[in-house]
């Protein structure tokens, strides 16, 4: 994931409390394969979602997105389906950590969550903490990442972050 470059996509709108059983039902969870998981992303809400979205499209949702189980395959499935970012009024705690860790861009903006419509074209400008709705012409600020989260995002995910830390620890 590029932490800073702006990117854009169309909006797919969802409501409040989209839980991980909806994002990736457990019957699809016996794999760690991103592409396979991606084919079933959001199957609990819309079985055709994965086939219909274009790479880079945004999910825009209400509060508590990703509540429920700790299954990390939830953000991985969204990445596999080609979701470019998730914008929500708020996120479930474990999903938030998981998304940051696996490199799925997520932005918290209660204002954007209620001011986007299905199919709107939006652009995220992470460096400026902005989400622009190019269809409506409105722009929304999103909450900056806490410092530790920003470090992980800058490293491109927790895997890279830990790899860097381990290599520094290891005597050459």
């Amino acid at each position, binding site marked *: 994931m590029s932490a800073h470059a702006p990117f854009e996509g169309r909006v797919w709108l969802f409501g409040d409390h989209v839980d991980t059983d909806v994002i990736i039902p457990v019957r699809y969870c*016996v794999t760690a394969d991103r592409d396979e998981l991606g084919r079933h992303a959001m199957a609990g809400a819309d079985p055709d979602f994965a086939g219909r979205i274009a790479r880079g499209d945004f999910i825009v949702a209400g509060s508590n997105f990703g509540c*429920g189980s700790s*299954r990390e395959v939830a953000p991985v499935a969204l990445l596999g389906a080609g979701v470019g970012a998730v914008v929500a009024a708020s996120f479930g705690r*474990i999903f938030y950590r998981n998304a940051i860790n696996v490199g799925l861009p997520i932005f918290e903006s209660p204002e954007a969550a209620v001011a986007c419509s299905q199919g709107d074209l939006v652009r995220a400008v992470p460096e400026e903490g902005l989400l622009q709705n190019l269809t409506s012409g409105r722009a929304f600020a999103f909450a900056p990442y806490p410092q530790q989260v920003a470090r992980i995002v800058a490293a491109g995910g927790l895997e890279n972050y*830990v790899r860097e830390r*381990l290599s520094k620890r290891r005597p050459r």
Partner: protein
Amino acid sequence: MGMTLAEKILARHADRPATAAGDLLHCRVDRIMATDITAPMSIEVFRRMGAERVHDPDACILINDHFVPAKDIRSADFARAMREFAAEQGIRDYFEVGRSGICHTLIPERGLVGPGEILVGADSHTCTAGALGCFATGVGSTDLAAAWALGEMWFRVPGTIRVEVEGEFRPHVTSKDLIMHLVGRLGVEGARYRAIEFGGPAVAAMPVHARLTLCNMTIEMGAKAGMVPCDAATVEHFSGRDRAVAEGPFPDHDAAYDETLRIDVSLLEPQVAEPFLPSNVRGAGEFRGVKVDQVFIGSCTNGHYEDLAQAAAVLKGRTVAPGVRLIVTPATQEIYLRAVRSGVVADLVEAGAAVTTPTCGACLGGHNGVLGRDEVALTTTNRNFRGRMGDTSSRVYLANPAVAAATAALGHIGLPEDLP
């Protein structure tokens, strides 16, 4: 300013004299738990991190519980990956099928985490163990792999909601009803990013298994941890597990809480949560007459021996209603054996129950009781999200074991007093 229990434990693990909500800490973790459904991904990530050995094999716990005994070839391969990793890394706390159980019940049963410690687990209901006075929280597979590699984890110190509980439970009302009432009151994000600390005379009087049920569902409000400080009952629990612990740590008297709630359980009736959120909670009586296809008694919420015994007492001398399936899953092998020896299993089987080996199974729609199209279930589990137990059109109601047993006998939702 004093500290809450969560603040106190997190500060100690970061070698800080004090901390407060909002601080970011790097904490040592005492125990690191994964299961057959989450460990395989952690293992892949661990290797990609360039890690070779876990930081401390004796901190690691690996438990076969979700898709066991293997439900298909892929779940068999998942379990094998975890088994081989345990052997390769010298992890002694590896629990094989037949000597295992649902992680959140097995960990307290074996005394694997103690008061004042930090447990991180790759399962959202890891918060259950907070009932023992530790800080226990659920994480994903990459966070878990990082903890294996580094032996530590970063946390934002959560604010705490204090819940003071008083009064005596009425018959057929349990800590499950108390926690469902609280989920209904606060909502599914009412404790997001926060800890919930339970206290008061009704909690002091509560046996450990009931406290586990209480802390188990704090994640259903988005909580990072649910906690009961270690008291005399907790010490006794551990002494039965050959582990000596002292009472405490306790929160300071002048700890700063986000809010304090008071609940009188003597006013509480059995609760039911209707689809599709665990916060859709009302008195069980309001759902009388809702027809069910399946009743499930088990899970990390209500798979304790006392839960099975409560259900068996309601069902003894009765039978499961025609057209209804009752599935009962003891949470651990030890509970299963105790229920066999005490006659609880016989009572359940005589009533027409299918009693399965310990597994998470039906609760998450894994196996051993998956729901088909348009089917309705009442369960003693913790989540009723859309499609949670099977087909997207199926519907799940949550309740305590006595209500579940009565519902199985009636064929529709009802209370023990409704039984002829």
